[in-house]
């Protein structure tokens, strides 16, 4: 039952993420979501698998501390604290997020999955987190908040992976985690360069790079 609670919390954090306009807070919430997901395999009673334990620890460490640290550092460097004037307003984002969650519940019910996987909140939560991540990526202007969207998107994929956590080799999972870390590490640096080059971290300006 504990894992259902964690999943429900994850879905709630999605709403917080789309509604917040302070960068600092969205980093915090994303980190919180990462920690929740890190505890998820433990709450499912998978203590006996060493690799699951290792993975949970690594997830909590990377998503709860390392990535927020990198993001905060990038935020200090570029001196951006607020996401002003997103493409989609906060109210509309909230409604779209609710719509996405609703659709996820319907979809999860109808997706042709294995009978054992179909139950529970895993699939709808994974899908709704995925949609939230996409929503953030699509609707936000600042490069930094887009990175948060990317992080949330990956959380959705991670949640989907939980269905297979017992079968999935350690190598694959650590690979995903490393990928995420490197991605965010690079983006943290790139954001600073974007500001230096375009005098702004507004991704709209990057359209100038088009041929």
């Amino acid at each position, binding site marked *: 039952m504990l894992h259902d609670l964690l999943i429900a919390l994850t879905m709630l954090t999605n709403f917080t993420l789309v509604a917040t306009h302070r960068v600092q807070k969205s980093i915090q919430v994303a980190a919180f979501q990462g920690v929740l997901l890190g505890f998820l395999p433990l709450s499912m009673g998978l203590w006996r698998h060493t690799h699951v334990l290792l993975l949970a620890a690594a997830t909590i460490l990377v998503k709860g501390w390392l990535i927020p640290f990198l993001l905060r550092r990038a935020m200090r460097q570029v001196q951006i604290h607020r996401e002003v004037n997103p493409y989609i307003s906060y109210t509309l984002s909230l409604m779209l997020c609710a719509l996405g969650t609703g659709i996820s519940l319907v979809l999860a019910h109808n997706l042709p999955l294995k009978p054992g996987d179909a139950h529970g909140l895993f699939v709808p939560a994974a899908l709704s987190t995925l949609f939230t991540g996409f929503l953030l990526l*699509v609707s936000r202007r600042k490069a930094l908040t887009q990175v948060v969207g990317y992080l949330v998107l990956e959380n959705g994929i991670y949640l989907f992976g939980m269905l297979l956590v017992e079968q999935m080799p350690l190598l694959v999972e650590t690979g995903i985690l490393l990928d995420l870390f490197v991605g965010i590490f690079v983006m943290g640096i790139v954001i600073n360069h974007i500001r230096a080059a375009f005098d702004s971290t507004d991704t709209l300006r990057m359209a100038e*790079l088009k041929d």
Partner: protein
Amino acid sequence: MILFGATLLLAFLSGLPGLFMKRGGGRSAALLMGSSAASGLLAALQVLLGRATGAVALPNQRVLDWGFLHLDPLGAIFLIPVCILFGSASVYGLAYWDDHRENSRTVRAAFGVLAGFLILLTGAQHAFTFLLGWEGMALAAFVLVMAEDRDPATRRAGYVYLAATHTGTLFLFSAFALLPKAAGGLAFGPWTPGFASSPLGSALFLLFLAGFAFKAGALPLHFWLPPAHSAAPSHVSAVMSGVLIKMGILGLARLVAWVPDPPIWWGGSVTALGLASGVLGVAFALGQHDLKRLLAYHSIENIGIILLGLGLGLIGKHAGSLPIQLLGFGGALLHVVNHALFKGLLFLAAGSAAKAAGTRDLEALGGLARRMPRTSLAFLAGAWAICGLPPLNGFVSEWMIYLAAFQGLGRPHALWSVAALGALALIGALALACFAKAFGAAFLGEARSPAAVEARESPPSMVGPMGVLAGACAFIGFFPVLLGRPLDRAATQLAGAQGPPLAAMASLTMLSLMALPLLAGAWMLVRWSRGRSFREGVPTWDCGYTAPAARMQYTASSFAEGLMRGMRWVLWPVTAGGRVAGFVPRPRPFSSHLPDLVLDRAAEPGLGGAARGLGALRFLQAGHLPIYLLYVLLTLLGLFVWMVA
């Protein structure tokens, strides 16, 4: 088979030592290429004359279920010109593209790789090896065409070539994907009888025809050829025109050999392609001012002659007549070898003249025969051969194709034979006119530009290879009877049945005998002219003027003007200015230009229009990251909905 392997390896590696050498890379490349050519010639002769045919089987794997290399008589016929041309062109390249050029290493390495892939193609007996060789050949040739990439015209030619060759390869990939349905696998082998007439068989034939005709440069698909041949360095043009485009013919010949029962329209369409390429190729050649472009259009013309031979043979195969098949296929295959020899010779001579005079423009050359006697003799020999005049080699192969057409008269489908005869005669006459123009404008008369006055004879390393090629042309022309047996073997492979020997059908012995009086006559002419004294340093022909000037000569354009006027309705030349009025007219500029029918009039405007039309879709490419992510999201949602529904 060891010989074939050695040929392959030596050719591939010929440019390699030069990459690490400070100087002398050209010599090492020429040495390696020469030994490759020698062993390749031995391998080909062994296959064509002896009994030994070896095969190298690749390990039996799932992906390459039967991949192998095998040099058969058909491949050996194509291997001969590859070896001769690459051997002589690499020696020619020593002085023509010397070590001081900034990209001489790249050019030599790519030249060796091109040779290697061409050799691989002649032995390829599996879709995998064939496509490997095909694609490798296309890419290596692209590097070579782009050798002078500082020139915008060269870059354009290179990209047109790349686009064309890949479009052709696309057709071949689809064709080879369908091949297992016909032959039971990707290995080359006979098709199931009756398959050729099925709808799938027709589709397969059309795909193969499109892919191979693109490479061979048959008429509507020839548009990449003239710019690429004139942009490439001359020794590269020689091998491209001589052997690279022949790989399209090799492919078609393989196709012919697989099919036991071709429908009549196969032969008809190949013959029609041959008619169009042959006649229009030479007609377009007449209107060219650029010496190498002119030669390139003649390649299209000769591909047309080869296709005529193949097409007549196919019609013979449909009708079950062995003499037509053997004469048609034999003539086509011999013309492959012959064209490689004399076109290689012509390109080398043209390159020598262009390098000495600094231009390829016929209107700026002239009078080179006095300054470059050996080069001009080589060009004359090549021109003689390409016009199909006895006693050189071009005559022998065209004679066989003529005979194939005559054999077809009075049988069913005789109309094709009549058309082929008319076309061959027309092509021969126009080619003669065209080379009278090219040789006259470039080598006879007076120099039309100061640079042409300064021209000096090329070094022996450039003249020698031309001599070798001219000698090979003369050898085939004088002793065609020696080629009877090898051609029999290869043509039998195409026909699928043993027939009467070619030497008897085409009276090749008679040709040799009849060549002898000509030879004696030529020798007497030389003796007679030796005995006479010549005055040097006077104008060739001063026309009765007291102070003749080079501008008073016939220009290349004015020489061809009469014929061009007759063919205006198909060629559409573009002329500007030139109209004079009054009794004492002022100087007026005049220019004429012959745009390519397909590239300049259809492909470029058409593709440009397509590019503009598709520009309407550029709004999708907004450049905003969120928009791209939205596309991903929408695709994802669409997939989900599709899965659920």
